[in-house]
């Protein structure tokens, strides 16, 4: 090593750098930014710009056909937060979300557990549960809309032949939500089941074997081994289901497609995204629609944060548990070791 101070070394090298060296240095310094640039440029174009644009629109009395109107500040937000139709749409969104997410995840777990068994023609069954996912939502909506038709639909015909009263799927609130949730479930259950199945297959078989040796039955093994092991995947499925559920549009839009008021005759299954669309493209109120879109963004971010802390809590819980267990084991080992050969433990710990 020489005794040159870092400062002088830097100054001499700087003046002596050839173009090639400088290019090299620039390469090291700047090219990483160039490599990550495509994402940020794309994000700026299709993510950030629309976001900012929407925000600007939401501050104007913007008409769809006539363009920007007067600057109104946050008036649009105030109007929407006081509008009963806005709250109606939020209620519908959450109602349909709960009606679909809960049964869907339960069914998906069950189906995944069944597919996880040693079935004959495994691939056939696994592909079959994914089949509904291939059908476009628009086609699903048209088929279910016909099935749930009030006067001519399959479901009401069946109810009628059982001597029951027809259900007003397209006029009553809860039946409408139920019918739409059915569509969502039909389409997404198989998809979620496959993801959960993948997680289940990653559970080590020796866990099941030792549990079986300890006398745990099938059901006990499912609840005590399978479910805890797939928890992280389960949370992932829950989060994607939440995001999808809060943006549900096609199903309610096409459920009563010939109706001029979107989301049912009385807006009884008008979800928030549908409400935004109606506000913008039927009522021409672009500014207010943009404001609702932003409120929805805030709601989704809030729910995302809740999800984040929830999953973080669970993750830390798990590490806590494993750390505690490791510590306990070590303690026991030490205690046993101290009694017998303390030296060997010291060595082990050194390692």
């Amino acid at each position: 090593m020489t005794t040159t101070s870092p400062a002088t070394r830097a100054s001499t090298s700087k003046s002596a750098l050839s173009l090639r060296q400088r290019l090299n240095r620039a390469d090291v310094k700047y090219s990483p930014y160039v490599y990550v640039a495509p994402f940020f440029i794309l994000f700026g174009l299709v993510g950030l710009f629309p976001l900012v644009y929407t925000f600007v629109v939401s501050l104007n009395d913007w008409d769809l056909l006539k363009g920007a109107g007067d600057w109104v500040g946050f008036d649009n937000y105030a109007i929407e937060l006081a509008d009963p139709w806005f709250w109606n749409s939020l209620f519908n969104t959450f109602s349909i979300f709960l009606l679909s997410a809960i049964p869907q995840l339960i069914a998906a777990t069950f189906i995944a557990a069944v597919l996880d068994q040693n079935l004959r023609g495994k691939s056939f069954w696994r592909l079959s549960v994914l089949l509904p996912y291939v059908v476009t939502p628009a086609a699903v909506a048209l088929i279910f809309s016909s099935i749930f038709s009030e006067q001519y639909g399959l479901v009401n015909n069946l109810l009628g032949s059982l001597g029951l009263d027809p259900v007003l799927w397209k006029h009553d609130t809860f039946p409408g939500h139920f019918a739409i949730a059915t569509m969502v479930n039909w389409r997404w259950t198989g998809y979620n089941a496959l993801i959960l199945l993948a997680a289940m297959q990653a559970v080590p078989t020796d866990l099941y074997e030792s549990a079986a040796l300890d006398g745990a039955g099938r059901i006990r093994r499912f609840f005590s081994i399978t479910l805890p092991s797939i928890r992280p995947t389960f949370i992932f499925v829950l989060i994607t289901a939440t995001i999808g559920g809060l943006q549900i549009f096609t199903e309610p839009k096409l459920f009563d497609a010939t109706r001029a008021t979107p989301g049912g005759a009385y807006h009884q299954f008008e979800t928030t995204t549908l409400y935004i669309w109606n506000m913008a493209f039927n009522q021409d109120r672009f500014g207010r629609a943009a404001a609702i879109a932003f409120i929805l963004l805030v709601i989704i971010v809030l729910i995302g944060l809740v999800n984040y802390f929830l999953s973080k809590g669970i993750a830390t819980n798990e590490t806590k548990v494993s750390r505690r267990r490791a510590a306990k084991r070590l303690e026991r080992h030490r205690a046993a070791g101290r009694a017998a050969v303390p030296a060997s433990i010291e060595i082990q710990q050194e390692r």
Partner: protein
Amino acid sequence: MKFSRRTAAVAVVASTASLALVLSGCSSDGGSGNGDEKITLTITTFGTMGLDGLYAQYEADHPNITIKATNIDTGGNALTDWKTKQASGGLPDIQAVEEGWLGSVMEVSDSFTDLRDYGADDIKDRWVDWKVGQATDPDGRIIGYGTDIGPQGLCYNGKLFEAAGLPSDREGVAELFGGADASWDKFFEVGKTYHDATGKAFYDQSGFIWNSFVNQQEEGYYKKDGSLNIEGNKTLENFWMQLADAQKAGLSANQAQWDWGGGQAFVDGTFAVFVCPGWMLGVVKGQVEAGGGDATSGWDFADVFPGGASNWGGSFLTVPTSSKHPKEAAELADWLTQAKQEVASFQAAGAFPSVLEAQTDPGVTGESELTKFFNNAPVGEILASRAEGVVAQFKGPDDALIQEQVVGPARTALDAGSADGPTSWNTLIDTLHQLIG
């Protein structure tokens, strides 16, 4: 604007008046289909306008032109489609516009090509004058060529009438409803007689009856000065109560508009009358056929309408300024609305021509698929007779929105029987305040 050789050539082909001749001066190879550049024209229509069969013919006559047509199921959906594209781009070269949303269109009439630049003044005598008047904006620009108008007659099911002990022949039915003095009171009275005899509903749902009544008024949802005309309008309110009474008496079948159980309601005797503007005849035929029926299902068309002459709907072909080929688009729109083509679309869909020459054409007054379907009713003659005395009503900017989102929910509640007349009328007024102001 610069004109390519191709546009000039096409201009000659279409032989539209003087402008084309001037342009052709610089082109020596003008002639049918000699255009050297392929042009694709997009056109968006809705419902059953009866234009679909004509595109192939135009393409055959103009080999350089390809027509890409989109047809949207209902006028309401077409309105949404237009608004979306008006705001964000993507409008076709030719956009069909319905009379009901002409008010919205006129708000932005400067984004439509002034067809006078392409010879509209030379051909405007082609149409009934009020049709041209409707398509003229406040600055005198003509932005649309009229396709059809919607004079209304009464569709009825002869078999069901007969079963109820009512006259079932066209003259008898016209007489039953009061002939030239037909009134809505009489209409509901006949409905009650029918209901008493059969226990079945008389009409499919109240919405179309309401539309017909509103369209019949000298001023509809708007006054001529552009102000709203709903709250405190006793004429409309009283009719609403009449509809409520009729619903209570079991006259409405509470069917879903534009759905009708996939057409089944048209063939299983659910209801016996249906208000029919010309273009609706094609809808009825389509619904009956979708429901598995045919000409023997009993539908017929009578030369009578409660409350006198009424026009519901009718459309225009416009050329948005965003079109890259406004000239060719205007020529196609011109061609599609010529007498011969309007006759063809009448025969296909019952779209009654707005072109005078076509109205008296044997193709309209004579036999067609449609007359066969409607028990050999001379539908053309009947519609011509129903068109007499029609007055164009002023349509305000939110006419379509009022029709669909203000009246719609209240009317549904009324038909479902979940709200009585006064309650649903109050709902209507409340919604009006919420949505329009």
